[in-house]
């Protein structure tokens, strides 16, 4: 069974049948994503410990997972709760900011008539596989994901890297769906510009 494509009910069944094997598959599939979420909240130094605590909590609570949400959403909630607990211990709180200020997507790339004045370059990639083959570009994507503002990074991580639904993300981050959409738009725009710049200059 591929846990990333299996339905929640199938994962519940697999966990009931062979908890160790199915849980190991969840760890293999989702550890990297959970670590990325934790790093966005508690930083690089503490993220591994936070994720390990999250796996311990998930294992203890696995019998309570009934497949009403996706397993990704369930695990993301757990890791965020672990991160919140860590922040509280340090006297801090997780407040994911709603988007603020003016944002002009692709500023300077459109004329007064609303047409492209500096259109996107032809990247020469015809599929995700094609794009991800270029190691320098992959490194550059990683670097730019790291430097996005926390609220944008979390929204992009949950939606585009992990495939959570908008409603789940709104609930987890305690933001409105429309604010999550704005954060996603800002993050995606910056990542698109980054790839476009890389194609133009060969530099990250």
């Amino acid at each position: 069974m591929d846990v990333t494509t299996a339905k929640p009910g199938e994962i519940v069944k697999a966990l009931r049948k062979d908890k160790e094997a199915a849980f190991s598959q969840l760890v293999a599939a989702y550890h990297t994503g959970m670590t990325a979420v934790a790093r966005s909240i508690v930083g690089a130094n503490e993220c591994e410990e936070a994720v390990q605590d999250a796996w311990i909590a998930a294992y203890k609570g696995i019998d309570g997972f009934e497949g009403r949400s996706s397993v990704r959403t369930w695990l993301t909630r757990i890791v965020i709760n672990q991160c919140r607990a860590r922040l509280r211990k340090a006297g801090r709180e997780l407040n994911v900011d709603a988007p603020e200020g003016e944002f002009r997507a692709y500023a300077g790339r459109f004329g007064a008539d609303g047409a492209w004045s500096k259109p996107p370059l032809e990247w020469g990639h015809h599929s995700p596989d094609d794009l991800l083959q270029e190691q320098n570009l992959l490194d550059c994507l990683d670097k730019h994901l790291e430097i996005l503002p926390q609220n944008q990074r979390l929204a992009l991580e949950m939606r585009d890297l992990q495939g959570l639904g908008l409603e789940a993300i709104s609930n987890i981050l305690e933001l409105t769906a429309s604010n999550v959409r704005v954060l996603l738009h800002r993050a995606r725009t910056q990542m698109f510009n980054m790839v476009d710049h890389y194609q133009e200059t060969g530099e990250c």
Partner: protein
Amino acid sequence: MLSCTEVVAHSEALLEGEASLWKRIQIRLHLRVCEHCTRYIRQLDILLRSFRRLHRPVGDDKVEEIMTAVHRG
């Protein structure tokens, strides 16, 4: 006819299947005559689908380390 800025503003809704039928028709009409927006949407689609593949599964060593921790936990 939509302008390029309007097409860009609606492109994510289009790719996520959230654009209304009327909006999809307006965008398609624009794309028939605009190579820049066609390229933009095609490449944005590739980028968004690439994101889903950025996280690689961890190896057996890491899984074993976590499973040891959950059993101790």
